[in-house]
């Protein structure tokens, strides 16, 4: 089985509203897959369908070779970890007791609790009552909960939205390590730097339709104007097309030692996002 997720012609309709419209894509085993799109584009709905919380109106959905009909089975549940946008914890219990519950429900060894607590940088806070935690700390406990049973595939719906840069970097390293150990990660985010840094491939969703799907680098190349931006010591800024008939101009600039800086015009994922969706970044 090469694909961790296979989606064909998926549609999700709420009453009159089509939240996802004929979306098809595959997520390969072992990759970090980023699902990007503006607020309301259908990211969370997609995660919910892929995790069995919602049933697609039309289409074929397969996760880890399991058909969506069987997402209620323990074979599915024990292989999949989920951090949904509305996940929550037992507020009156400690971090440790929360994780202990899920450790036992998944039949994982209790020593996993310490492993995941270190992964999310909360080992020293394990005896704190959840209601006393900050939003970012709760988010990290939820992430720990999603990883407690060492799942093959994890769905993370905006896992880092409440984190400070230090903890964000810590979590990113943790996710990369997890991925190197073989875990497939399906991630939604509004943070384009995060997507660029982490994801092997990203998909852009807009109004419930898939607009783009490729590696961040390929997309940046695709949306590039392929021109060179040159800044000279005299303070001029030139845009030179990447065309054979422009070669002389560039050669002359180099020969005369005029170039202060030169770079190609590859847009960031954020700029591509704006182009694809015609929307401001949230």
């Amino acid at each position: 089985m090469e694909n961790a997720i296979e989606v064909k012609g998926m549609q999700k309709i709420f009453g009159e509203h089509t939240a996802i419209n004929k979306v098809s894509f595959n997520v390969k085993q072992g990759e970090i897959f980023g699902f990007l799109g503006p607020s309301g584009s259908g990211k969370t709905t997609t995660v919910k369908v892929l995790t069995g919380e919602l049933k697609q109106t039309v289409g074929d959905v397969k996760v880890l070779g399991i058909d969506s009909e069987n997402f209620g089975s323990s074979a599915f549940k024990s292989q999949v970890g989920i951090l949904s946008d509305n996940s929550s914890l037992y507020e009156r219990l400690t971090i440790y007791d929360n994780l202990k519950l899920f450790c036992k429900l998944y039949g994982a060894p209790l020593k996993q609790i310490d492993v995941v607590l270190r992964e999310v940088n909360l080992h020293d806070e394990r005896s704190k009552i959840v209601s006393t935690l900050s939003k970012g700390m709760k988010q990290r406990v939820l992430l720990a909960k999603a990883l407690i049973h060492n799942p093959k595939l994890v769905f993370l719906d905006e896992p880092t939205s409440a984190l400070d840069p230090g903890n964000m970097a810590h979590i990113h390293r943790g996710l990369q390590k997890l991925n190197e150990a073989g875990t497939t990660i399906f991630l939604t985010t509004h943070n384009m730097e995060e997507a660029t840094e982490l994801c092997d491939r990203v998909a852009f969703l807009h109004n419930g339709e898939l607009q783009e799907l490729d590696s961040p680098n390929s997309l940046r190349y695709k949306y590039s104007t392929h021109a060179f931006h040159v800044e000279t010591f005299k303070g001029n800024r030139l845009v030179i097309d990447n065309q054979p008939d422009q070669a002389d101009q560039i050669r002359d600039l180099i020969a005369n030692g005029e170039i202060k800086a030169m770079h190609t015009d590859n847009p960031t994922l954020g700029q591509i996002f704006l182009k694809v969706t015609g929307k401001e970044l949230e």
Partner: protein
Amino acid sequence: MSVQRIHAIFEKDLKDLPRNIALLMLPVSNILLALIYSLTVDGEPPIAFLYLIAGATFSMVTSGIMMSMIAEENEKNTMRGLIQSPASLLDIIIGKSLVTGIITAISLMVSLMIVGIEPLMNFRAIIGLILMFLFFLLVGIGIGLFSKSLAATSGYLMPVMFLFGFTPMIATFQLAEDSIIIRTTNTFPIMQAIELYDNNFWMPLGILTAWIIGAALFTFICFRKVMTDD
């Protein structure tokens, strides 16, 4: 169904309950009720009164705590996390029922001991109490399953308490013996448990069983509804 998962839920709820002040108020007020009575009335309490205390315990503590625990999981969205795990809804309910059973046993013992438990220390009385427990437990599970919030459960708990928990009180309304209300409420679980205690055996046992089957059916329908909800 898995013993390990039931135990995990049981352990979690047993730890959580003492920290849940709102829920603790239920057994506490039940015991207070017994205390107030024993301080104001002298001598042996009438048997109907012992059953009134039992009814108060089963409705407030058994049904009340059970429905609140389930409704809170719905309201706070923690139910989702449980369902996403390999735990089945049945595991979750059995784990919670065990916790409810323990709290019920403690508050029933304490409140009955305050007013005088001796008359109920016999086979027939205990059978009646166990059947009443089952009835109120099932009612609590059913209501908890369809309640989306804790606030909603208190609205449902009131009628359960007054109809089924405090049924012997209706005798104090001075209605005619053969009025439709008296004849109806005489078939209610507590009245049948009293009947079981001091008159017949098989007839009230049958009626109590019918109540339990009815409650089980209600719970099953709520269960199905939750499982098939989008």
